[in-house]
């Protein structure tokens, strides 16, 4: 069985997973929360949400109605 050194080395994978958890994961989590908030304020067409955010949507130039 030929081994493939480097790719699956624990030495190599550790800094990679560290970058993933240190940076990518918090960034993605924050960005997803932001998108959910923006979706509710801007795009959601539930009547109550639409009417509550109506003036804000018109003012920011988002497509409304």
């Amino acid at each position: 069985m030929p081994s493939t050194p480097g790719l699956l080395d624990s030495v190599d994978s550790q800094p990679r997973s560290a970058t993933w958890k240190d940076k990518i994961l918090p960034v993605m989590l924050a960005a997803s929360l932001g998108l959910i908030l923006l979706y509710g304020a801007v795009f959601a067409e539930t009547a109550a949400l639409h009417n509550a955010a109506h003036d804000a949507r018109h003012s920011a130039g988002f497509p409304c109605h």
Partner: protein
Amino acid sequence: MAGMFDLAAFKRIISAAALAGMLAGLLLTAVQQIQVSQLILKAETYEDAASTAAVSQSAHAYSSAENMHHEQDAWQPATGVERTLFTALANISLGVGFGLLLGATICLRGEAGGWRSGLLWGLAGYMVFFVAPSLGLPPEVPGAEAAPLVDRQLWWLMTVIMTAGGLSFLIFARTGKVKILGAVMLGIPHLIGVPQPQVHASTAPVELVHAFIYATAIANAVFWLAFGGLMGFFYKKFA
């Protein structure tokens, strides 16, 4: 392991976004009281007058007027303090939402923050989320004829993504080819063209329609610059 998750980076983004979004959202609400809100209320009097006229004309007109105003059958905040409060809430949600996106971007780029660079991010946000979409779909007062909502939302979303991508290529790319690609991306949504309504019409007079575009351009510029500056400031402070 969950312990590896960088909670500090996450908290930093959340705290900066919450504070900057709340303050900028409140500022936007205050600025809107000067012109934007008055123009919306004025446009609604024309819209209501037009739909009342349609109701008295014929049963058929009544049903179409009914469809146009379906959202008025549902709950809506009472005009006055209640309506302003909900607008403030929506503005703050926008501010915090944009803050989380901007905080994530600043963190990903490994920037230190600070109000100066924040101002530049605010300017970019104004271009991406207001100026570029408004070139095709100018902010409208209530009562304007428009293309189907989903078409406009899709064009809006495409324009925002293309402008954000195009601007970042133009500014951050190291090679000329990628910069050119960025410039092309900026133009694509406008070459494709905006979804058009069958007839261009508005129940509001044309002066009011134009006044609304100017008023929103100023209000949103104030919001984005304040928001960007605050976001940069708090991101650095919470380091």
